[in-house]
C-alpha cells in the first residue's frame, strides 16, 4: 500500500460512502453492538476481524438492512437507513453482499442467478443483462458453467458465482461475510484471488474474514471487534506489527 492511499483512508476528502454514527443494536435484551462509529471512503478496503460472536456479521448486515439497528444512524451513499422501504431498496441496490454459504438460488441456472437483479431491479433488457452476466462470469473465471445449476458446482465455484451475482448490480460497495470459511482449503485461494482482483480495480470492500494474508496484502484498514465494539482499527502494518490493545494482542496470538 502506498502513502497516498493511506492518507485518503485517514483524512476523508469528501463525503464517505458509508457513515455509521453511534449505532447500537440489541437482540432482545442482548446488547450485540454498542456505539459503533465507522466511516468508509469510496475505494477503501476494510477487513473486519474478531472472535466468533463479537458482532461482525451483525454490523455488516446492518449496513444493507438485513438487520435493523435500534439507535444511531447509518447513511449509505447519502441515503439514511430508516423504516422507509424505498430507501432500503435504494441502499440494497448499491450495496452487494457475499454470504458465507453463498446463498445462490438453486432453482435458477447460473446465468439466471446473475441476471435476476439487473432485469427486475435495474430493469435492464434481458439481452443486455445476459451479456453483462457473461462478462462478469468470465471475470470470475467460470463462464463455461453459465448454463449449469448451482447444485452442480463446487463450493469455490458457487462463491465466485455469488460474487459475480453481486457485481452484476454494479454496486458501489461490496460486503463479504466470511466468504471463504465454508470452503474446503483447496478452494479458498480461487475465491480470494477474485476478491484481490476486485480490490485492485478499486471496489469499496468491507470484508469479514480470518484470512490474515488477505488482510495484509489488500486492506487499507483492519478493524478488530470484540463484544460488540470496535476495539481497534489501523493500517494492516501497524495492526499486525504493533497492536495497541491487550484483547487485540490476545486475538492475534490465537489466530496467527
Amino acid at each position: 500500500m502506498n502513502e497516498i492511499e493511506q492518507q485518503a483512508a485517514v483524512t476523508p476528502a469528501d463525503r464517505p460512502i458509508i457513515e455509521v454514527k453511534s449505532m447500537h443494536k440489541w437482540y432482545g435484551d442482548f446488547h450485540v453492538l454498542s456505539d459503533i462509529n465507522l466511516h468508509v471512503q469510496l475505494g477503501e478496503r476494510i477487513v473486519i476481524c474478531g472472535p466468533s460472536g463479537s458482532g461482525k456479521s451483525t454490523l455488516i448486515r446492518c449496513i444493507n438492512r438485513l438487520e435493523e439497528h435500534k439507535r444511531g444512524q447509518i447513511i449509505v451513499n447519502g441515503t439514511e437507513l430508516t423504516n422507509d422501504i424505498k430507501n432500503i431498496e435504494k441502499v440494497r441496490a448499491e450495496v452487494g453482499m457475499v454470504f458465507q454459504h453463498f446463498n445462490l438460488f438453486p432453482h435458477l441456472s447460473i446465468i439466471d442467478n446473475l441476471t435476476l437483479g439487473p432485469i427486475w431491479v435495474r430493469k435492464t433488457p434481458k439481452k443486455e443483462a445476459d451479456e453483462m452476466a457473461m462478462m462478469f462470469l468470465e471475470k470470475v473465471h467460470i463462464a463455461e458453467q453459465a448454463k449449469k445449476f448451482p447444485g452442480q458446482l463446487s463450493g469455490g465455484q458457487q462463491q465466485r458465482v455469488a460474487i459475480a451475482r453481486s457485481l452484476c448490480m454494479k454496486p458501489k460497495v461490496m460486503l463479504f461475510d466470511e466468504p471463504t470459511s465454508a470452503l474446503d482449503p483447496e478452494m479458498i485461494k480461487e475465491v480470494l484471488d477474485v476478491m484481490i482482483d476486485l480490490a485492485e480495480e478499486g471496489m469499496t470492500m468491507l470484508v469479514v474474514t480470518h484470512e490474515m494474508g488477505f488482510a495484509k496484502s489488500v486492506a487499507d484498514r483492519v478493524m478488530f471487534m470484540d463484544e460488540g465494539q470496535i476495539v481497534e482499527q489501523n493500517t494492516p502494518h501497524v495492526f499486525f506489527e504493533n497492536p495497541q490493545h491487550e484483547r487485540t494482542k490476545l486475538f492475534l496470538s490465537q489466530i496467527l
Partner: protein
Amino acid sequence: MTNPPVSSREYLKPPITEVGVIGWLRGNLFNSWYNSLLTVVVLILLWQLVPPFFRWAFIDSVWNTPAEACRDIDGACWSIIPRNISFILFGFFPDGEQWRPGLAMALMLGLVIFSRNRKHWKKSLGIYWSIGLIAMGTLMYGGVFGMQVVETARWSGLPLTFMLALFGMVAAYPLGVFLALGRQSRMPAIKTLCVVYIEMIRGVPLISLLFMSSVMFPLFLPEGVTIDKVLRAQVAIILFTAAYIAEVVRGGLQAMPRGQFEAADSIGLNYNQTMRLIILPQALKIVIPPSVGILLSAFKDTSLVVIIALYDVLKTTKVTLSNPKWTGYSTEAYIFLAVLYFICCYAMSNYSRKLEKELHTGR
C-alpha cells in the same frame, strides 16, 4: 520408484449369482428366511385369487348383451356399462344433445394434455384456456347456434365430476398459496384473518360445507336472488380445498432457508419479486407430493355432492343400478367406476412425479 500404469488395472465382472435374473431373485425375493416365506405366501395367494377372477372377468363374462342374457351366466355382466353408458356418463343431459358434453369433455381433456408440457406455460396458454372455457360453457348451456338451453340442474355424470374437480383444483391452488402467504404476513389483521379462515374450514367436514352452501346460504340471500346450485357446490369445494393447500404451502415456505430471503433482499428485490421469483418456485416444488395428495382427495371428494342432490358420475351409476333390470350387477359397475377414477388419479400422480423430476436441479 515408478507407479504401475493405470491401464493395468483389471475390471472383473461380478459373480454370476449376483447379476441377471438369478441375482435379482436372490437379492429381492429370497434374501432372508422371512422374505422367502413372504414370497411363497404371496405366490400361493395370487394363485388362489387371480385365475378365478380372470375367469369371472374375461372368460365367463358377457360384454354387450341385453340384461336378460346375464341371468344364466357365471361370469361378469359387463353389459351394464355399454347398455347404460350414456346415462352413466351424461346423466340427465337431454338425449339427442349428449354430443355437447362429450365435445366439452374432449376439449377439456385436450387442454389438460396440452398444458402438461412445461414449454406451453406461457401467456398464450391462458388465452387458450379462456377460449376453451367459453366454448365449454356454451356447449353445456346452449341457447345459441340453435342449441337447446340445458339448465345446470341437468348437468350431471362425468362432465359434472370433471368440472367440479378441475375448477376446484385450479382455483383452490392459487387461493391456498395466497392464504399461506397471508398467514406468514407481518400485518396482524391479514394474518389473523387467514389463520381463522384456515382453521375454521379445516375444522369442519366437506359435507357440512356443501350443506351450508345448499341449504343455509340461500337463506341469507335477499328475496329473488338465487345463485346457481352447481356454482355454490363448486365454491364450497374450492374454499375447502384451498384451506388444506394453504397449510401444505406454508410448510414449504417454512422449509425455505433464511439465506434465500437474505440473498433476494441483498440484490434489492422487493417482497413480491422475492416471493414470485425466488421463494414460491422453490417452496411449491418441495410441496408437490403433499399437494398432489390433497388434489387427489379433492377429485375423489367431488362425489360427495350427491348429498345436495347433484348427480355426479358415482350417483348416475347408482341410479342405473336401481333400475330393476340391472340390479345385482353392482360389482361390475363399481369396478368400472374404480377404473375410471384410478385412471384420472394415476395420471395426476404420474404427472406430478414427472414434473418433480423435470424441476430437479441437482441438490
